[in-house]
């Protein structure tokens, strides 16, 4: 594990909104093929962390690097770096005026300038893999929330990114649809896709993670293998947090 190539290197990252410190001097690396799950209470900075990695937020200190290349908000180099970082958000964020196929192929065609036949072929293959080959010509409004989210995953995957960032992608879904989306993510993990995942689905987190990072107050409170974190968390804060997911009479 230790000698593998780092995809993401975060060093001493600090992010503030005004005087409000969201992420404080946070350092973290993600290796090739690794699945890192970020867990923590609302407002702990986990979603903001993902947004910083994609350069959607200006940062106040430290750095984020993708393969050693700095990700800097507002720099023109960002447009190239973002092609290598796939991001899926909580909201169903498909482009409503385009079919599923257009949604998926827009960026590879326009941003990467790839061949149309090749891109369409890959799109069909990926849509088939998430069980949506028959929806290629549908508009997002004709899809369920779970289907939309699977399309959003495909839309990121087709860019052949080095890493996927998943930001609470099932938080807005009906319980029954959570499963179909998370299964897709589990498949990706098996296939060796490097991912950083923010989620509140604890059972899923335990199944998918190579490493669990527990954040609170913008700092890493605990960092463990999933079986350790979920069954014998070391810090009192993590124990308290995990208790909120269990019920007893």
């Amino acid at each position, binding site marked *: 594990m230790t000698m593998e190539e780092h995809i993401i290197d975060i060093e001493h990252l600090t992010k503030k909104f005004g005087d409000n410190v969201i992420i404080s001097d946070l350092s973290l690396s993600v290796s090739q093929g690794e699945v890192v799950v970020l867990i923590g209470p609302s407002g702990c900075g986990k979603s903001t962390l993902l947004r910083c990695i*994609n350069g*959607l937020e200006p940062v106040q200190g430290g750095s984020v690097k993708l393969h050693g290349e700095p990700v800097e908000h507002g720099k023109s180099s960002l447009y190239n770096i973002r092609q290598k970082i*796939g991001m899926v*958000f909580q909201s169903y964020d498909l482009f409503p005026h385009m079919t599923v196929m257009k949604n998926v192929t*827009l960026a590879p065609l326009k941003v990467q300038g790839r061949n149309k036949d090749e891109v369409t072929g890959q799109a069909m293959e990926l849509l088939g893999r998430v069980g949506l080959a028959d929806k290629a010509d549908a508009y997002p409004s004709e899809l369920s929330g779970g289907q939309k989210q699977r399309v959003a995953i495909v839309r990121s995957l087709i860019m052949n990114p080095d890493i996927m960032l998943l930001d609470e992608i099932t938080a807005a879904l009906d319980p029954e649809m959570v499963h179909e989306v998370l299964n897709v993510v589990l498949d990706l993990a098996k296939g060796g896709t490097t991912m950083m995942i923010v989620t509140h689905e604890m059972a899923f987190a335990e199944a998918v993670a190579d490493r669990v990072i527990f954040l609170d107050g913008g700092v890493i409170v605990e960092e463990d293998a999933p079986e350790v974190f979920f069954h014998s968390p070391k810090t009192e804060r993590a124990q308290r947090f995990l208790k909120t997911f269990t019920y007893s009479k």
Partner: protein
Amino acid sequence: MQGIEVLFMGNNMLRLWGGLWVTLRLSLISIGLSLFIGLFVGAFMLVKNPIVKAICRVYIEIVRIMPQLVWLFIIFFGITKLTGIDLDGETAAVIMLTIWGASEVGDLVRAAFSSIPSHQFESGLSLGLSRVQLYVYIIFPQAVRGLVPDVINLSTRMIKTTALVSLIGVTEVLKVGKQIIDANRFEYPNAALWVYAAIFLMYFIICFPLSLLSRKLTKKRGE
């Protein structure tokens, strides 16, 4: 002696259609100008500069709180008084309708853009789209789709508002109707009913399809 005969006497019907054409022409010119200027007003309203924003806001609010008729009189009589330039009625009408229409279009443009959720921008950017690509492929098409039904609605309001310009001597459809009624007041006392009914139908023929179209497009947007 029935009032309905008045409609078919001489070239009355033709004159009414001619009047309707004046109404339509004024409306079309004004809508065109309103769209052009309104796009800029809308763009200015989306600018972050608070002074630019405030100026646009004041413009829109002033136009909104004053009756269009007052604007029409200010332009038609006021400009002549102040500058000595003798505006003809149609020009004054187009100016009034454009000042009003541009403010409405401006507000619609602002609303169409600000109603696009921020995650549409973010998901576009996170796919690596440049700013220009983001606007060309993602933002503009959505804004236009939102805008079209509203602009069609505004057009029907504009067509109806054109009736005001009969008051400054422009012979549009309502004015033609009045002339026909006045000319036949003694022989056909109930002509007014028939002439106004005909004008009602004419407005209906123009505005109803537009209204249907707008409703259809709105529904499509919400699908």
